[in-house]
């Protein structure tokens, strides 16, 4: 028996047995089961199982089978796609009318567009597409991927299918070009005024459960949750890290403008495979500085690691008032020091700042402390900033789109 185009036909999914209704029988090539997500070949009377999709999770905002009037024509929703580009995702509804054919209803970042496949090619002039006297400016090409699909379509479609897409826009109208290995297709899209879709299909904005209309807000929340989980993991690592330990300390007495003195402090034992060692100098200088040279020397192999620091503090007053600068407690971090027994060789020299603001002062005491397994604070902060990149990017996109949790879509 030959099917009349447009006459509904009842089928059963061979995978799960759920009933499937083909609304555009004779025109539909593939049908996706709404129960198990399997893709079925509608042309084969035995319903050959083509591919099983495991993405039957989300539900369309507009249920399949809904009818509504747009542009004065009553349409029935027969298919639903979720697609994503490089950094945006959107939903596409395939609308069908037995006399008018197919239309696309696009929902992207809270806005609705009605699209119709073009039966003629626009003329390309550089990055601009020309159609019916209008010039459409092109965007950068991107890959558009099918993430979820349910319903019926007049072409073969499956999850993972990717095409090269380019959008051309001119005010409230745009052209979308999609290329795959076989063909190039153009669709003309027109923005729909707010409230049009909700009125046409008799819908109200979803409350609570179900798919959130505002993808930008949802993406921001998702990225915030992921970053929060990552931050918690960072805290766990930080808490589980070896506790920092002061393993040696000594005090040097320096004469300002006197000769440099050398002191060997140790042993500095590194018991783990490798550890961080921080040398902390503490002094109370006034308008003076202490140059400090450190050499961490392994006793057996004489392998050495070097660093330096300056403890300094200056103060005075000028036309702008009192000022001060300098760091009396500089710290030098040695990273990844291999297991072994070390001596810290310290060479220190005190200098006094002369001139009108300087003055003589007695000997300067410098306390050198050696701390093992420390210095992760800066790294933790750096890692936390790396985790914040995602939410910050999403927040910027959210801000740019002007969307929010309470103003989610133009129903």
């Amino acid at each position: 028996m030959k099917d009349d185009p447009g006459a509904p036909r009842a089928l059963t999914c061979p995978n799960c047995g759920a009933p499937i209704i083909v609304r555009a029988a004779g025109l539909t090539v593939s049908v996706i089961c709404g129960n198990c997500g399997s893709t079925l070949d509608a042309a084969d009377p035995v319903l050959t199982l083509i591919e099983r999709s495991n993405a039957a999770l989300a539900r369309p905002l507009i249920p399949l089978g809904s009818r509504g009037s747009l542009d004065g024509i009553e349409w029935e929703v027969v298919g639903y796609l979720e697609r994503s580009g490089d950094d945006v995702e959107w939903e596409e509804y395939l609308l069908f009318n037995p006399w008018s054919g197919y239309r696309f209803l696009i929902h992207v970042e809270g806005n609705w567009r009605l699209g119709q496949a073009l039966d003629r090619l626009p003329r390309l002039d550089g990055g601009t597409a020309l159609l019916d006297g209008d010039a459409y400016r092109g965007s950068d090409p991107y890959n558009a991927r099918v993430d979820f699909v349910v319903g019926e379509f007049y072409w073969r479609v499956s999850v993972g299918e990717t095409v090269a897409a380019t959008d051309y826009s001119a005010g409230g109208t745009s052209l979308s070009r999609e290329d795959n290995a076989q063909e190039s297709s153009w669709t003309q899209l027109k923005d729909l005024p707010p409230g049009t879709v909700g009125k046409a299909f008799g819908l109200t904005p979803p409350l609570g459960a179900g798919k959130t209309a505002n993808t930008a807000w949802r993406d921001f929340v998702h990225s915030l949750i992921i970053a929060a989980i990552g931050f918690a993991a960072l805290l766990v690592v930080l808490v589980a890290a070896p506790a920092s330990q002061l393993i040696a300390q000594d005090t040097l007495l320096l004469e300002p403008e006197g000769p440099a003195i050398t002191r060997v402090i140790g042993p500095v034992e590194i018991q783990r495979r490798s550890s961080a060692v921080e040398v902390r100098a503490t002094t109370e200088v006034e308008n003076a500085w202490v140059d400090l040279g450190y050499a961490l020397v392994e006793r057996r192999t004489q392998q050495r690691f070097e660093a330096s620091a300056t403890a300094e503090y200056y103060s005075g007053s000028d036309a702008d008032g009192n000022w001060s600068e300098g760091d009396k407690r500089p710290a030098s971090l040695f990273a990844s020091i291999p297991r072994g027994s070390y001596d810290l060789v310290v060479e220190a020299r005190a200098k006094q700042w002369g001139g009108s603001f300087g003055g003589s002062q007695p000997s300067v005491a410098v306390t050198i402390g050696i701390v093992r397994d420390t210095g992760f604070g800066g790294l933790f902060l750096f890692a936390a900033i790396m985790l914040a990149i995602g939410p910050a990017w999403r927040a910027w996109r959210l801000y740019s789109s002007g969307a929010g949790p309470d103003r989610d879509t133009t129903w």
Partner: protein
Amino acid sequence: MKFTNILFALWCLAVVALFALAVDRGYSPFAQGGGPGGRGGFFFFGGFGGGSSGPRHK
């Protein structure tokens, strides 16, 4: 879950894994001296190569 969110989750996983590895190895990109990542000091015995000291206030 959106593909970009999966990518971001993998990014976070990599950041946490690298942080854990750095803590285990005592590594820090901010270290002044030491093994990998340490930039060595400006100090050398017989002289300080850290440049001139003194207040920078103007």
